[in-house]
């Protein structure tokens, strides 16, 4: 997989400044999630990647820690213009949205006496919580065949959600354990 990821770019090669501008544009159009917008721009409009290539890049970006969209920016930037490209792309991805988010935050602070703003945000918060609950419920279908995976998903939920244990502790314990269990199963089948 990594072979594909580091392979040469198929289409045009962009410089750091162009990458910065492209990813700034992407991020600003990505209301409620940038990934769909990234797909539209990089695959459908710019034709920088085929669907297959994009899927490979995405899988690679998800495997690494950190926000998937930021990792994807780094990878695309690196493939175009090396380290400077990677840095420029991720800077474009977070720079402008960061300023916007702060301005919205200030607006919220200033308008806190306004009951209506307050109520609207309360409603939006309840919806935001629902959106996050729905995503793992969709993914649980993928795990259903495997009770060990379900068990570990349950353990992770209980540890962090109910017991409020530190995430670091939970991951350092559960991740190696699950990798080990998976390895055992594979070996057992041989």
């Amino acid at each position, binding site marked *: 997989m990594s072979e594909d990821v580091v392979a040469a770019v198929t289409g045009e090669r962009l410089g750091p400044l162009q990458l910065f501008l492209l990813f700034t544009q992407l991020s600003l159009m990505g209301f409620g*999630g940038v990934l769909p917008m990234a797909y539209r721009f990089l695959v459908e409009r710019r034709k920088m990647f085929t669907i297959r290539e994009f899927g490979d890049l995405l899988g690679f970006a998800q495997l690494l820690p950190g926000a998937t969209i930021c990792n994807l920016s780094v990878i695309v930037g690196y493939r175009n213009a090396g380290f400077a490209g990677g840095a420029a792309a991720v800077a474009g991805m977070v720079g402008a949205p960061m300023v916007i988010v702060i301005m919205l935050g200030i607006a919220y602070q200033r308008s806190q006496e306004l009951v209506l703003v307050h*109520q609207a945000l309360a409603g939006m918060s309840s919806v935001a919580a629902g959106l996050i609950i729905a995503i793992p419920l969709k993914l649980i279908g993928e795990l259903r065949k495997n009770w060990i995976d379900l068990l570990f998903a349950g353990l*992770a*939920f209980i540890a962090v959600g109910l017991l*409020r244990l530190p995430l670091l502790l939970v991951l350092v314990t559960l991740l190696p354990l699950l990798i080990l269990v998976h390895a055992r199963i594979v070996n057992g089948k041989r």
Partner: protein
Amino acid sequence: MENADDNVAWVLGGHLAALSVMAFGGGAIILAPDIQRFVVDVNHWLSNEAFLAAYTIAQAAPGPNMLFVTLVGWYAAGLLGAVTATAAIVVPPAILTLAVLRASPARVSPTRGSMIKAAVLPLSVGLMLATGYSLARAADHSWGSAALTAVTVGVFLYRKLNPLWLIAAGAVAGMLGWV
């Protein structure tokens, strides 16, 4: 005051930098409960309400959703807090990604990669559920708001709808005083 804020900014930045490389399986969303625990429960830099506001504003705004840490930093320690928090969450994983790209492909063998991937998925499902649960517990104080969360889950599971419409509907429901 200035110095106290600066101190908060660095402590928050350090914590987020350590967390950032733990954000497996999709991003900073799974970090939300731990960040909430750290800034609200442990250090009392933010109220629960301010944390929720930060999260919700970042979801509604353009750009990566994980930029809620920018606002958490802003509310906890002003501009320095916002910049430090953002850099802390973005830079370490970016460096790691570059390092992996730079490493010879042979070192990241596909089998090892897929084994990690297979273990990450179940955990990220559980952790995302934990995030949703923590957010719901913080946001839903009435039957109305709990119902709004439940309806959102249902709609998202069974209808293909841009999440922004749901968030807009939530804003309207809130203004009408239903939550």
